């Protein structure tokens, strides 16, 4: 964490102004860090407590007898709506939806960036401008039109199944969510890759052309292997966004077997019967947050590097 350097001023005695500045700056940083970490701390601590301890003890106190029971219950037994089989099924629902959505949107973004920088055509700036515009469309405004489109696709899927015996995934809520997230993410992934490839030396593409490589061979052998930083950035960005999405998930897969993690978590917490099991709720929320946390830890060091890449030539 860097600190804003303040010009040192001469002081006439006692503690120098510089030291005071340091104390103020670090004091503020510590305060804000505390502010940020407090909820996480409460969540973690609570998730390892028994219900008795929660009801009778201090919220900030460490667990007297740490127990994994709430985690196991959240994973395998807690009630989501009316079914009581834990959140594990919904966790896998999210994985099944997020992984294809992230990979497809990232690869398509890379392909778009490649075409928009290295195979320029008439009106390429307009196309890029429109794709950029997609980044600014609010979720809410596409909600209903998208529902109509997904409905039509679903009906087409039924027709296909009647005709061929196979619906090709049309109408499947997981496929629907993948489709929505790919379409919505395309603007961002294209923006990331276009800006990265803009600074990518065009002579490499020309050299590969002279060497006889085709459009896709150049993409696969030259562009992609040299796109690691921006690839990681895009994957982290897309993974976090899609995993955390609640609006699309609840609108298009809010009920039924394909319900993603975020919606399930909401249903766990919003139960209206019996005692509110804070420890189980906290454990479920932690489980829901873990994958994004994991992605940051594993790939995070590329994140800053990737965002900076291309900013400076060389």
């Amino acid at each position: 964490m860097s600190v804003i350097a303040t010009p040192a001023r001469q002081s006439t005695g006692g503690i120098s102004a510089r030291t005071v500045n340091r104390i103020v700056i670090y004091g503020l940083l510590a305060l804000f860090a505390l502010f940020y970490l407090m909820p996480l701390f409460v969540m973690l601590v609570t998730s390892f407590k028994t219900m008795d301890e929660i009801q009778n003890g201090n919220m900030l106190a460490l667990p007297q007898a740490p127990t994994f029971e709430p985690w196991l219950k959240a994973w395998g037994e807690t009630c989501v709506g009316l079914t009581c089989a834990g959140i594990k099924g919904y966790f896998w629902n999210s994985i099944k939806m997020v992984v294809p959505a992230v990979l497809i949107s990232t690869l398509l973004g890379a392909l778009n960036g490649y075409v928009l920088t290295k195979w320029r055509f008439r009106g390429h700036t307009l196309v890029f401008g429109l794709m950029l515009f997609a980044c600014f469309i609010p979720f809410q405004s596409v909600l209903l039109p998208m529902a109509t489109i997904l409905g039509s696709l679903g009906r087409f899927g039924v027709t296909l199944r009647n005709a061929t015996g196979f619906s090709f995934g049309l109408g499947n809520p997981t496929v629907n969510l993948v489709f929505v997230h790919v379409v919505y993410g395309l603007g961002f992934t294209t923006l990331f890759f276009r800006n990265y490839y803009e600074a990518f030396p065009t002579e490499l593409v020309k050299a590969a052309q002279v060497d006889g490589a085709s459009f896709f061979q150049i993409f696969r052998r030259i562009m992609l292997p040299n796109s690691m930083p921006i690839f990681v950035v895009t994957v982290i960005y897309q993974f976090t966004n899609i995993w955390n999405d609640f609006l699309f998930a609840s609108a298009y897969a809010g009920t039924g077997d394909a319900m993603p993690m975020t919606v399930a978590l909401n249903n766990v917490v919003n139960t209206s019967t019996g005692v509110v099991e804070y420890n189980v709720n906290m454990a479920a929320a932690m489980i829901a947050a873990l994958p994004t946390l994991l992605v940051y830890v594993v790939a995070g060091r590329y994140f800053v590097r990737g965002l900076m890449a291309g900013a400076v030539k060389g």
Partner: protein
Amino acid sequence: MAFLEINGLRKQFGSVEILKGIDVDLEKGGFLVLVGPSGCGKSTLLNTIAGLETITEGEIRVDGRTINDLHPSKRDIAMVFQSYALYPNMTVAGNIAFGMEMRGVPAAERQKAIDKVAKVLQIGHLLQRKPSQLSGGQRQRVAMGRALVRDPKLFLFDEPLSNLDAKLRVDMRIEIKRLHATTGTTIVYVTHDQIEAMTLATKIAVMRDGEVQQFGTPAEIYNNPTNLFVADFMGSPAMNLIPATIGGNGNALSVVLQREAREPISLPLADAPTGLSAFHDKPIIFGVRPEALTDPEGAERNASNIATADCHIEVVEPAGSDTFAVTNLGGKAVVARLRADANIQPGTSTPLAFNLTKAVFFDPATENRIL
């Protein structure tokens, strides 16, 4: 029939004409250098030969085959780029073999070709390294290796030495010349450096604003420039181009050079070009290279037409191998090239010998040579 023929080549970007009818040809085993200031279209011309740019009009033929509309990989060419364009994710060996891999050459054959090229360029010990682990000169070699391994009909070099430091540039220049001599390949080479052009080429095309100003051997370009631009561009230090008038009468013409606060110099011309008589009493541009303007002892012995005149020396620049003296004639600074040990002081007058056999004359209105 020439090996490389370019006929009436035009290239337009929208309404802007980048190449305005290029006609150039090159014999087999020749070394053609396209030289000119930046923005003259020389790199675009090279890219059209490579097939990386389309052409609007005209024809490009290599070894009797029209290649206008062929894909770059089908033209049997190899190209060395200014930035070397080595694939950063592949080893040196991978870089060299990439083209063969794309054409489906079997692995064993590829290895053989890599070894052969590595031996020629002495890069055998670098084969397993990545481009980022190489120095500038080594990258240059690998880039040439990637071109050499294809054994193409035509090599294209796009300012290959401009990223190297001065000393390495001279070394690599010699290396390229040696490579050309030993392999006998046909090369088209783009540069903005007129020394590279002079030293490497068998043919030079001097370009400006999308047009070939002059096309010929280095000696022709240097000694018989067709216009002011070529005269000024080729040669270092540049040719002295002095505003002058033609005096004298009938068969005995002379060049009259104005001087500050002194009477003009009149240099008698023994065998003036025939076109010059039309310019009697009219302004012309008198062109004389620094080495044709020297101290009388250092003047060329067997030149038939040498005239000597006293000149006021303003600046003396000892360069080690030569001494350059700057005087003022016709309102312009004029550089003379003297022997290194010439005893000459700034601020004094000294006789300088004009080798008029080597002098050239230009029409100031059209900028063309007067013949």
